[in-house]
C-alpha cells in the first residue's frame, strides 16, 4: 500500500494520464479510502482546468507582416555585407585596406616627428652645458645647435663649452676682471664641476645617428686668442683685415666691458699665418698654446684688451 505522499507525488502524471497502468491501478485503489488524496486530486484537476481555460491573447493586427518586414530588412543588410566582404571570394578588402592605411600613417608620423626629436636631443646636450652668463670669462665657442633664426641676441655670451678641448686650449683669463683671488678660485671650482658634468653627459648620451650628423654638423674646434693692444680700435681693424685675408667668414664683433671680441670661422690651415700676423699683439705663451694642429674649420674668438 502506497502512502499518501507517494500517491500525491504521482498525481500530476495521473491527472495527465501519463503514468504506467500499474501506478494508475495503485492510485485508483487508494483514492476511495483516502479523502485527503481525493481532495488533492480534485484540486489538481480544478487548477488544470483553470489554466486550460485561460483566455488566449490575439496577435496585434499586422503582426506577421511586421515580423516579415524585419526579416526582409535583415536579409537585405546581410546581402550588402556579403557583397562587401566576398566580391573576390577572398576575405581581404576591408582588412587589407585598413592595414595599408595604418602602415602609411605610422610612417608619416615617424617622419614628421624625427627632426623634432633631433632638436630635442641637441637641447638636452647643450642647454645644461651653458655656463652661467658672463661670470665665467673663459669659454670656448661651440656652434649652437639651434637654427640661427632661433638664436637669442646674446647667444655669444651664452656659448656652450666643449669639454675635451678645454684642457688643451683654454687659457685662463683673469687680467681684465680683477676679481679677488678667492672669487676666482670659486669660479674655477664651479667650472671644473661644470666640465665634469658635461663630460659625463656626453658619454651618457648616445651618439646621434649618421642622418642627424648631416643635418647638424659636429661643432668645429674653437680657439680663443687673447690679444693686448694700446689702441683697441686700431687692433680690431687690423685683426679684421687679417682675418679677411686669410679667408675667414662670419666675422662678428662685440664688446664686453673694455674688451673687444671678434669671432670668425676660418680654415684651420691658416691658423699659423694668423698667429704670425697677429704676433705683435699676442704673448708668446698664448701663441704656442693656440698653435695646436687642427683640421677643417676652426672657430676663432679673438679677445682684444687694453695693455
Amino acid at each position, binding site marked *: 500500500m502506497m502512502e499518501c505522499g507517494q500517491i500525491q507525488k504521482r498525481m500530476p502524471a495521473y491527472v495527465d494520464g501519463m503514468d504506467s497502468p500499474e501506478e494508475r491501478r495503485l492510485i485508483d485503489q487508494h483514492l476511495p479510502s483516502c479523502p485527503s488524496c481525493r481532495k488533492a486530486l480534485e484540486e489538481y484537476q480544478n*487548477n488544470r482546468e483553470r489554466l486550460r481555460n485561460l*483566455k488566449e491573447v*490575439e496577435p496585434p493586427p499586422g*503582426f506577421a507582416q511586421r515580423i516579415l518586414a524585419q*526579416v526582409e530588412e535583415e536579409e537585405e543588410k546581410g546581402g550588402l555585407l556579403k557583397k562587401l566582404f566576398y566580391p573576390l571570394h577572398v576575405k581581404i578588402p576591408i582588412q587589407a585596406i585598413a592595414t595599408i592605411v595604418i602602415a602609411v600613417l605610422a610612417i608619416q608620423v615617424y617622419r614628421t616627428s624625427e627632426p623634432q626629436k633631433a632638436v630635442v636631443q641637441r637641447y638636452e646636450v647643450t642647454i645644461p652645458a651653458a655656463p652661467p652668463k658672463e661670470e665665467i670669462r673663459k669659454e670656448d665657442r661651440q656652434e649652437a645647435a639651434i637654427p640661427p633664426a632661433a638664436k637669442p641676441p646674446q647667444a655669444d655670451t651664452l656659448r656652450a663649452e666643449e669639454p675635451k678641448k678645454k684642457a688643451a686650449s683654454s687659457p685662463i683669463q683673469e687680467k681684465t676682471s680683477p676679481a679677488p683671488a678667492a672669487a676666482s678660485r670659486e669660479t674655477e671650482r664651479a667650472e671644473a664641476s661644470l666640465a665634469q658634468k658635461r663630460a659625463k653627459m656626453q658619454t651618457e648620451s648616445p651618439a646621434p645617428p649618421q642622418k642627424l650628423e648631416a643635418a647638424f654638423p659636429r661643432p668645429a674646434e674653437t680657439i680663443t686668442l687673447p690679444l693686448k693692444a694700446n689702441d683697441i680700435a686700431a687692433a680690431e681693424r687690423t685683426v679684421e683685415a687679417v682675418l679677411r685675408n686669410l679667408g675667414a667668414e662670419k666675422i662678428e664683433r662685440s664688446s664686453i666691458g673694455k674688451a673687444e671680441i671678434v669671432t670668425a670661422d676660418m680654415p684651420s690651415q691658416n691658423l699659423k699665418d694668423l698667429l704670425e700676423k697677429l704676433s705683435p699683439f699676442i704673448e708668446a705663451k698664448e701663441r704656442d698654446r693656440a698653435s695646436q694642429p687642427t683640421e677643417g674649420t676652426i672657430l676663432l674668438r679673438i679677445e682684444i684688451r687694453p695693455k
Partner: protein
Amino acid sequence: MSHNIDDPNRPAREADFEIVARCRKGNIEAFGTLVEKYQKKMLNVAYRMVGDYQEACEVTQEAFLSAYRAIKKFRGEASFSTWMTGIVLNQARNRLKQIKTRSQYEGRSLNEPVETAEGSVSQDPPSGELNAAEQMEKKDAETAVRDCIRSLDPEFREVLVLRDIQEYSYEEIRDILKIPEGTVKSRLFRAREILKERLKRHAGSL
C-alpha cells in the same frame, strides 16, 4: 507510451518540414507561412512567460527573427513548433532578466506585477456568451490564476505554461527545455504544488 506511437501531429509536422526546407533556400514567403501559422501560439507562450502583452509581442518578434537566422541549423529532429517554442522561451528568459534588472534599477519590488496589465487584459477578446456579472467573476478568477503563474519561478512557470496551458506532451517539453523527462515530471509536480498553495492562499485572502 501510447502517445508516441500515433503522433496526431505527424502530418502537420511533415508539412512544416517542407516549408522549412524552402526557408532554408532563402524563401522568405515560406517563412511567412510559418509566421502566420504559429504567431498566435508563440505570442501566447511569450505572454504567459513575461506577463505583459507589449513585452510578449516584442519577445515573439525577436524569436521569429532569430529563428529565421538559425533556420539552417534546424534539421527537423523535433517539430518546427517545438523548436520555435524553445526559441521563444529563450527570448522570454532574457527579457525577464532585463525586466528584473530594470525594476531593480528603478527600485521596484519583483512581487509587484510588472505592469498593471489592464492594457493587455483589454486585448483579450471578450467572450459573448457570458453576462456582465459572470464576466466579472470569471475575470477575477482569471486574474488570480494569472498572478499566481506570474509569481512562480521561471523554471516552474515554463513547465506549467507548456503542459497545462499549451498542452505539449512530456516528450515535447523534454525536447523544448532540453531536460530529462523525469525532471519534467518532478518539476511539473513542484509547479502544480506551489500553484495549488498560492491559489488557495489567494482565495482565502478574498
